[in-house]
């Protein structure tokens, strides 16, 4: 669906600050692929390069990001670089950006925000009919119709996040890109939303790319995993394989550094050591 070929991405017009350095991998159809890494690893930058949002001074210095989609109306194959993805946004590709707690427009009711983002093909019928369709869809996320009449500040963080996931899924995209979609949420709410995202992916048989610093989240829901460190991919493969048999020292340390319930405790460590 997307092939990323030896791509170097960074920022700046005069000087160039490299954030992603010579990265290659393929995003297939019908899979959940995870991108893991810590702050500064380049995972969000890579995601933006895949989405094709170059409005923030982001620049592909070398290499290519190429997408292959099937036009829903004509059945024709669309193949183009991510810099030309704009007309596929909220049609073939949905994006849930990082910090999405503050992504919704605070001055606009939810209904208008949902409708404004829809491609023409989804806007058929009257306003009332469309509202009913959206309300029915939101119900599947445990959101009541009156959410549509709320302003973002009237909703909890978990509800806002569910609204964003719902908007992203409503257009039946082939590709959903989610950048830390549950990072600011409590674990109980996080689990609900992740399970919803998995179910959407299974139902639509589309592709979900999930960026997260949390290896536990990747372990739970991704099929394949890419581990980034300082702008490069240090390890990639099937998620189960990486956790069973991490190849790179960085990955090994990352997995080993996770504290576990019922695992070793610091009290034991100090007690044994000193």
């Amino acid at each position, binding site marked *: 669906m997307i092939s990323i070929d030896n791509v170097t991405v960074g920022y700046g017009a005069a000087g160039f600050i490299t954030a992603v350095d*010579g990265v290659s991998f393929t995003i297939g159809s019908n899979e959940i692929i995870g991108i893991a890494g810590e702050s500064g690893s380049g995972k969000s930058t890579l995601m933006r390069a895949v989405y094709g949002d170059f409005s923030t001074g982001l620049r592909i210095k070398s290499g290519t990001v190429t997408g292959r989609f099937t036009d829903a109306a004509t059945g024709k194959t669309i193949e183009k670089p991510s810099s030309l993805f704009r007309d596929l946004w909220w049609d073939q590709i949905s994006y849930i950006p990082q910090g999405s707690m503050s992504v919704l427009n605070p001055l606009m009711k939810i209904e208008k925000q949902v409708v404004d983002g829809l491609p023409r093909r989804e806007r058929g019928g009257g306003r009332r009919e469309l509202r009913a369709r959206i309300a029915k869809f939101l119900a599947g996320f445990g959101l009541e119709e009156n959410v549509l009449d709320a302003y973002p500040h009237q909703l909890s963080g978990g509800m806002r996040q569910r609204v964003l996931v719902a908007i992203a899924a409503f257009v039946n995209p082939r590709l959903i890109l989610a950048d830390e979609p549950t990072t600011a949420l409590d674990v*109980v709410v996080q689990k609900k939303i992740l399970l919803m995202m998995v179910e959407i992916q299974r139902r639509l048989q589309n592709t979900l790319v999930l960026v997260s610093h949390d290896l536990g989240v990747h372990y739970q829901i991704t*099929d394949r995993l890419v581990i980034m460190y300082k702008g490069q991919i240090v390890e990639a493969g099937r998620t189960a394989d990486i956790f069973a048999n991490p190849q790179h020292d960085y990955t090994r340390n990352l997995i080993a*550094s996770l504290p576990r319930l019922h695992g070793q405790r610091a009290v034991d460590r100090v007690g044994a050591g000193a």
Partner: protein
Amino acid sequence: MSDASILEVRNVSRSYRKGGFFGGTHFKAVDDVSFTLPAKPQVFSIVGESGSGKTTLARMVLRLVEPSEGDIRLLGRPLIGKEGRIDSLEFRRLVQPIFQNPFEAFSAYLPIEDYLRRTALNLKVAKSVEEADRLADRALRSVNLSLERIRGKYIRQFSGGELQRISVARALIPQPKLIVADEPVSMVDASLRMSIVNLFRTIVEEQGVSFIYITHDLSTAYYLSDQVAIMNHGRVVESGVPTDILDNPSEAYTRELMAAIPTVGERWSELDAIDSAYPTHSSRQKTGSNQPPANA
């Protein structure tokens, strides 16, 4: 009896008004909470989700918020009320905070060493700049840094992990009895998180400082603490030694919290239900049919 404890929190509540300019209702952010930190230095964790009241409780211990009801005593002396109340300077020498975001805890316009020096001078634990520097250096060394290494640097020149270690050093300058740390590692990368958590433990053991560790993360609380209290809707639902309550939780809420942690090696059972509802997805059985990621 109270002389034997560092901190005693007795039947503490804090109410806030909610909604309505006139009228509205009151709700209790913290509702009748009691716990004691014994004289022996240790880590007491307060675990809860957002809105559980854990931060309000921490702020009451830090005397940033006044309780609506109840009593808090530090070394047997009241934090609130008029009689025998600990004065502000002494309080700040005894109890120090560490906050979630170290980038917001320090001024962006001062070199870090200035900030640490001012802390020592403001708390009147140092009488001269030289003495303040000596105290700052000693504190920095206990977090594996030194004055030499941070000299002339501003906050943006540090990583989140380093800066949080400096926050710990700042808190150690007056050699306090108690440090209240509110989500101190939630913004620190996973690979550095454990080194800071381990640092807390070392400080407890070597410097005799007690910690109140406020967190949403049960796993680090389990790892770090001598005692843990689980909060929900302002109340402590369960508390005790972590191995006792988390290896064998009696409360439904604790179990729900534990089951929601995305743990490596323990796949959520709900995922199997989703997979069997959509059998076309063959993720877990996928062999070599998918294109492998071709990373050069």
